[in-house]
């Protein structure tokens, strides 16, 4: 199953793209598995995600805890803590 990964703010800048489609390995079950997997996908991913605990993740446009399973989410967004308002 192809997933759409979307990146925002300095996560986007460090990875060098705003979105991509990816097939994830079966070993990627939870949000934290996803972050650990992406860190192995090149220097730019490692630079963006090295402090994985600060990265916020949304599954199909809803905030998700790092322990949550990614399940069938089609759109997965990674971004820094929010600074709106």
């Amino acid at each position: 199953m192809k997933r759409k990964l979307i990146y925002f703010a300095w996560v986007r800048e460090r990875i060098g793209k705003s979105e991509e489609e990816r097939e994830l390995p079966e070993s990627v079950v939870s949000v934290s598995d996803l972050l650990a997997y992406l860190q192995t996908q090149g220097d730019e991913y490692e630079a963006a995600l090295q402090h994985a605990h600060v990265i916020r993740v949304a599954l199909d446009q809803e905030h998700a805890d790092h322990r949550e399973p990614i399940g069938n989410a089609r759109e997965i967004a990674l971004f820094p803590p929010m600074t709106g308002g």
Partner: protein
Amino acid sequence: MAVTPTIRVQADDFDVAAEIEAVAAGRTDIGAVVTFTGLCRDENGRLSALELEHYPGMAEAEIGRIANEAIARFGLSGLTAIHRCGKIAPGGNIVLVVAASSHRQAAFDGANFLMDYLKTSAPFWKKEHAASGQTGDWVAARDADDEARLRWQKVGGES
């Protein structure tokens, strides 16, 4: 009557008076309207602009979730939240909240609650543009904003 919040994310500026009018128009049950407007600061001359990036779709959805929670929790009669995106110069508007209720306390609390949650969970990010013309850093999240949000959990005993 179910209250539906008005939520918008837009590049254009907003008119505070017109938004108050829109919430209160045709209503005779509203006794209080509280507005909050967030503006762009120049940080003592250091900045020429803030650039606001957002997650289209989720930004509206997340503010909508917070707004519905505020309406239910405080019994609001009307609620509008508008957040601008793109480049905003110092002095310009960034965010507007209009909260209406029968009595003032609910409107004050509703606007305050919405802003505290919006700051920490609505997907927006600010990038600084320096007065020197250089693109600066992303604004870092503040612990004080997380603490402001947490106090609502202590008060109400809910998330």
